[in-house]
């Protein structure tokens, strides 16, 4: 099945800093999502982005499907951005399940 690698595993920022999180896939994907897991464990949908670029406030994401990676940009980070960021893509062979990466744990300090 597909392998999903996320980097960096941990990231510590000062409030106001920008960051880029990366997600690499072992195979091409046609369905890619980014999630934020807050400190209470809730999974929040950030982006559904099989290809191209999308923006939502201070967050934006870019997926280059042919190169098998996606990037999540966080600008002017806030303490509420802390948590774990996951990307997920479909496994191959007609399966419906999403395969998650191990996540990037982001800590934003005041």
């Amino acid at each position, binding site marked *: 099945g597909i392998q999903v690698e996320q980097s960096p595993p941990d990231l510590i920022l000062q409030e106001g800093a920008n960051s880029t999180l990366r997600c690499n896939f072992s195979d091409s994907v046609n369905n890619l999502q980014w999630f934020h897991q807050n400190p209470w*464990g*809730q999974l929040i949908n950030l982006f559904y982005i099989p290809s191209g670029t999308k923006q939502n406030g201070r967050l934006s994401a870019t997926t280059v499907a042919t190169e098998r990676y996606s990037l999540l940009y966080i600008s002017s980070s806030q303490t509420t951005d802390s948590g774990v960021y996951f990307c997920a893509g479909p496994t191959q062979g007609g399966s*419906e*399940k999403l395969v998650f*990466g191990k996540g990037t744990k982001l800590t934003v300090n005041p």
Partner: protein
Amino acid sequence: EPEVTQTPSHQVTQMGQEVILRCVPISNHLYFYWYRQILGQKVEFLVSFYNNEISEKSEIFDDQFSVERPDGSNFTLKIRSTKLEDSAMYFCASRLKGYTGELFFGEGSRLTVL
């Protein structure tokens, strides 16, 4: 905005007890899923459900687990005889289209087995 809702948010149970986790998917969605996340680990797929039957399940989803859509709105996950290692966050998800549609997750049900 429509959302997937899950109950309970947290359940504590004794080993060997039956547990039912409930989910109300987004109303016009057709594909339903359960995922789970053991503390500190990745989110893992358990089962997918479409047209009133299981369409796919993982090796985790053994005979102790079952899913049901008892009416037009609820989607449940039952664990018949809980084990310590079933302690995890369980997420329900739904989407309109299979395979390529955006997946929407509920806020999760945290299960603690003592």
